[in-house]
C-alpha cells in the first residue's frame, strides 16, 4: 500500500516533469491538477496502472491552432477563449457580409477536424452538446510554438497530389477508387495516432496479461498491443493500423508503431516505410487519461511533430460500428454513376 502511494507520487512527479516544458511556453495552463484530493493510481492485479474503461476523445480543441493565436499554446481562461472565438466569428461574418469568404471555419467545421458536415449530428445524438468532453484551454492538439503539422516534403506532397489527380479522374470507376473511409477499410482517425472524430469518438481499453487492447468505435478497429518486450513483427507485414508494441515507463504506457500500410494517411501525409509513431498513455485522475503522441516520418515531414489531448471516462458502451456490413452507400453511389453515364 505504501509502495502504491510512493509510485503515485513518482507518477505525479513524472507527469509534472513532462508537462513542465509546455508550461514554460505559456504563462497560464490547463486547470490545476486536483492535488488537494488524494487520488491514488488504480492498479490492475499485476500492479500496472489501470487504464481500463470506456473513454471519449471528443474535443473542441482543433488539431491546428487558429492562425490569429500565434504561438499561444493555452488560453488564459474560458472567458478569454470565448471572447477570441466570438471576435473571430464577427470578423468572418463581416467578411461574409461584404461578399468575402462566407465560411467561417468555426461554423463550417465545428469539430475542427476537417470533416465536411453532411449529417445532422444533433439529430442523431452525435452532436457536440451530447458528447462528454474534457474541458481544455489548449489552443490546438498539435503542441509546440507552431501548433500545426510541419511542412510536407516535396516528394511526399507529390505522392498525395498524384493520388488525388488519379482519384479525381477516376473517382466513380469502381469501389477500389473510393477513399478508404468510404470503403470502410479505415476511417483515417484510428491512427495511431488516434485522433478525435466528429462523432463516435469512443474507445475502450482492456488490459490482459502481457497485452493492452484498444478498441475504437470507428469501424471497430482494434489493436492488441503486446507489452511483453517482444520486437516488432517482420517489416514485410504492413498493416492498416501499423504494428504496435508497448512497454511501461513508470506509470505511463508507451506504444511504438511502425510498418504501416503505405496507403494510410497521417494528418493528410502519406506514411512511409520510415514512419514511427510513439504514443504515451498516462492516467492522471479518476476520470482522465492523458494521451500524447509524436509522429516521426523523415520521408514525409520536414520534422517530427507532437500532440496531446485528454480522454475522459464515459459509461459507454462502445457500439458495434458495422461499417462495411451496412455500406449501402457504396453500391448506390456506383450505380448512380453508371446510370448517369447512360444519360
Amino acid at each position: 500500500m505504501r509502495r502504491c502511494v510512493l509510485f503515485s507520487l513518482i507518477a505525479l512527479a513524472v507527469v509534472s516533469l513532462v508537462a513542465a516544458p509546455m508550461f514554460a511556453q505559456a504563462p497560464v495552463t490547463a486547470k490545476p491538477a486536483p492535488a488537494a484530493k488524494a487520488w491514488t493510481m488504480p492498479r490492475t492485479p499485476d500492479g500496472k496502472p489501470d487504464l481500463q474503461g470506456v473513454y471519449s476523445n471528443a474535443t473542441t480543441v482543433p488539431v491546428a491552432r487558429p492562425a490569429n493565436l500565434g504561438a499561444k499554446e493555452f488560453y488564459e481562461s474560458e472567458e478569454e477563449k470565448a471572447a477570441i472565438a466570438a471576435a473571430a466569428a464577427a470578423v468572418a461574418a463581416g467578411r461574409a457580409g461584404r461578399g468575402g469568404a462566407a465560411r467561417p471555419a468555426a461554423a463550417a467545421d465545428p469539430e475542427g477536424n476537417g470533416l465536411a458536415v453532411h449529417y445532422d449530428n444533433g439529430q442523431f445524438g452525435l452532436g457536440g452538446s451530447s458528447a462528454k468532453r474534457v474541458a481544455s484551454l489548449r489552443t490546438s492538439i498539435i503542441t509546440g510554438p507552431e501548433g500545426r503539422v510541419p511542412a510536407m516534403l516535396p516528394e511526399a506532397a507529390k505522392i498525395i497530389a498524384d493520388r488525388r489527380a488519379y482519384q479525381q479522374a477516376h473517382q466513380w470507376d469502381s469501389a477500389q477508387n473510393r477513399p478508404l473511409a468510404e470503403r470502410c477499410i479505415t476511417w483515417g482517425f484510428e491512427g495511431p495516432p488516434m485522433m478525435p472524430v466528429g462523432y463516435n469518438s469512443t474507445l475502450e481499453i482492456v488490459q490482459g496479461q502481457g497485452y493492452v487492447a484498444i478498441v475504437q468505435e470507428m469501424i471497430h478497429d482494434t489493436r492488441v498491443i503486446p507489452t511483453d518486450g517482444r520486437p516488432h513483427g517482420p517489416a514485410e507485414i504492413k498493416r492498416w493500423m501499423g504494428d504496435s508494441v508497448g512497454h511501461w515507463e513508470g506509470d505511463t504506457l508507451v506504444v511504438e508503431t511502425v510498418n504501416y500500410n503505405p496507403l494510410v494517411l497521417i494528418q493528410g501525409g502519406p506514411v512511409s516505410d520510415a514512419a514511427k509513431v510513439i504514443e504515451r498513455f498516462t492516467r492522471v485522475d479518476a476520470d482522465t487519461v492523458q494521451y500524447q503522441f509524436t509522429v516521426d516520418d523523415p520521408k514525409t515531414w520536414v520534422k517530427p511533430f507532437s500532440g496531446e489531448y485528454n480522454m475522459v471516462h464515459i459509461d459507454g458502451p462502445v457500439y458495434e460500428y458495422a461499417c462495411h456490413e451496412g455500406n449501402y452507400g457504396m453500391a448506390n453511389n456506383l450505380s448512380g454513376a453508371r446510370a448517369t453515364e447512360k444519360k
Partner: protein
Amino acid sequence: MGIQSAKMRGSWLLVGAAGAALLSLAVLPSPAQAPYKAPKTKDGKPNLNGIWQANNEANWDIRPHAAYAGPVYTLGAAYSTPAGLGVVEGGEIPYKPEAAAKQKENFTNRLKLDPEIKCYMGGVPRSTYMPYPFQIVQGTGHIMIAYEFAGAVRDINMGAPTKAPADSWMGWSNGHWEGESLVVDVTSLNDSTWFDRAGNWHSDALHVIERYTAIGPDALQYEATIDDPKVFTRQWKMSMPLYRRLEKNAQLLEYKCVEFAEEVLYGHLRKQPLQGKGDSK
C-alpha cells in the same frame, strides 16, 4: 473335461477380474486424473489469456460430412471441402421442416449468400471456429475477444448483466465464472450470419450460451448451446477443443477483408469490367 472346464472357468475368471480392474481404472476418478485446472490470474480467475484457434472442419459444415467439391470449379482441389466429423452433439441439427429447406437453399446459393464471402463479421459462434486465430484479453471487469477475421471484436461484460442497445453482428455478451468455466450469455445477434459455409442458419431469436474451459495448458474446450425457437424444434449444442497458437511470436494479424470482397459485392457496378480474373460464370 472337468479339469479343462475348471481351468477355463478359472482363466475366464482371471480375465473378468483383470477387465473389471481395467474398467474401474478407466471409470473411477483417481487424484492423478482430476479435471485440469488452469493457472490463475493474479485476481484468482482461470487464466484464459492467449491466442486460440479451432483446428477442425466446422467452418465448412458443422455437421458430419464427407469431402466434396468446392463451389468454384476453377479452384479445384485447393478450395474444396475437407471431410469433418462435425461438432454438433448428436450430429443432427433439429431444424423445423421449413428451416431445413431454407438451409438447402442457402447451400445451393452459397456463392451469392455466404456472409463470409462478403467479409461480414462472423457472429457467434461461427467466429470461434473460422480458420483464423482470435485472442482473449482478460481484463478485470471486461474480457475482450478480438478475432482476426474481419477485425471483429466482442466486449464481454463481467459485471452485473446489461442489456443490448441494439441487435448487432457480434451480439451482446454478459459473462460470469462457473468454477473453472467462463460462461458467456450472448443475445441480440442479428439474423445475417450463418453457422458455416453449408448454409446452416439461425434467426434474430438466436440465443447462445458459451462455455470456455481449459482442458490443458494449451487447449480449451468450447461449448455453445444454441437456442432459436423460430428455427429449431429444441435447444442443441456444439462443442470442440480450441488450441493455443504456440509460435513464440504468435500474434493476431490483420485480415481486413473488405478489399478482398469488393469485387464480389460491387464488381457488377464497375465502369470497366475486370478482365481475366476470377470466375465469370
